[in-house]
């Protein structure tokens, strides 16, 4: 089942254009969204979260158009932006206490479990957290309201190898529980380790949206790793 559907999304900035981006996300699967810096990953994710206005196109979640059903859809979504911290000088406890009021599905038990799992201290402030811990804090908020779909913008960037490994392991655990995960990255090893499907974007245009194995079969050459395939495709596109 397609739990998320992005249809023909276009967005024009003075120096960049997102062109006719369409893809779907399958329920209970991890989809990696790859592309080099400036390829359009963040613009696509912002469109999916209704943070920017698209010139055209539609986005559906759970069969409902985002436009007109924003509140009810966002109740079932979780998001994380790896590099941004919210309310950097407020204690985590205060941020959580305010945030939980917006989610009738807030699960205090889950919150306590993930808090312990991530090793987060409620008395700390986001400014005192490392980049990896900030990502975990965003995930903590998303998972505590039982988000069915997680949209994560470069959640592994800035993480040390151990934290990345922990995070990717968590993704797999969540997928096994039926959570749909869509995460952007430019680290191909993240995709190799946990993605079921791939969405590949280059210069604002979608180049592929398919299962990882199919991508390797259709775009890869014998013996090439995923990283080598992407590097070759990027070189070919630039040539």
């Amino acid at each position, binding site marked *: 089942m397609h739990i998320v559907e992005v249809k023909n999304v276009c967005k024009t900035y003075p120096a960049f254009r997102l062109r006719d981006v369409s893809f779907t996300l399958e329920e209970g699967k991890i989809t990696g969204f790859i592309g080099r810096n400036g390829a359009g990953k963040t613009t696509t994710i912002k469109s999916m*979260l209704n943070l*920017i*206005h698209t010139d055209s196109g539609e986005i559906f979640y759970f069969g409902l158009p985002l436009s007109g059903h*924003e509140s009810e859809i*966002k109740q079932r979504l979780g998001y994380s932006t790896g590099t941004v*911290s919210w309310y950097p000088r*407020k204690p985590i406890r205060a941020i959580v206490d*305010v945030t939980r009021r*917006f989610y009738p599905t807030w699960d205090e038990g889950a919150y306590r479990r993930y808090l312990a799992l991530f090793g987060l201290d409620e008395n700390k402030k986001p400014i005192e957290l490392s980049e990896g811990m900030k990502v975990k804090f965003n995930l903590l908020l998303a998972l505590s309201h039982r988000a069915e779909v997680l949209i994560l913008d470069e959640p592994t960037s800035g993480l040390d190898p151990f934290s990345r490994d922990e995070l990717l392991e968590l993704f797999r655990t969540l997928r096994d529980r039926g959570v749909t995960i869509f995460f952007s990255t430019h680290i191909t090893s993240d995709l190799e380790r946990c993605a079921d499907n791939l969405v590949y974007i280059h210069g604002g245009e979608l180049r592929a949206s398919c299962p990882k194995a199919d991508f390797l079969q259709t775009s890869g050459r014998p013996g090439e790793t995923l990283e080598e395939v992407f590097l070759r495709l990027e070189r070919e596109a630039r040539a």
Partner: protein
Amino acid sequence: MSALIKKEMRLGASILTYLFLAFFLMTLLPGYPILCGAFFITLGMFQSWQSAREANDIVYSALLPVAKRDVVKGKFLFSICIELTGFLGMAIVTLVRMTVLSDAAVYRQNALMNANPFFLGLALVIFGLFNLIFIAGFFKTAYKFARPFVSYIIVCFLVITVGEALHHVPGLGALNAFGFAHLALQLTLLLGGAAAYALLTWWAYRLSCARFEKIDL
């Protein structure tokens, strides 16, 4: 609704906003332009907008399960709460000046505006102008606030200057009434100020919603 106000008060607001509420006490100052008290209360609110912007509050709010117009609504509800709290303080002090202190020499010899219902009406106009010029101006971009705030300061001090001096114009002496003199006129002016506040705030809210809906975050 309560979640939105709670968010503004606990996460978005600067402590200075609450501390600056104490400027309602300026209503007691003799020989001082007491309308400045309303300005200082809005200056305290400005601190909250500044700290909220630094904390990425607008984007965080837009990502919550609320419509974009509810983000604007939360900001307005918070501002209205602060403004009406400040107004209440000013009204209490004004009542004290109109009753037990109505014959105090320091107030009788005051060349500037007296604390009376007309003063309270003008304080409401200043709050309404803050909402229209500053808040609605901020929502043009949701991050730039220098120009709207400077514009607001200019208009605000024009209103303060005119308000403080108006009773010196021949025929307008009743504006500076002491005690309960000219009560009907004074109450009419207060009601006019309240109506202006409601209108300016409603207009500012509508404008802010429309502007915020259009911008990319």
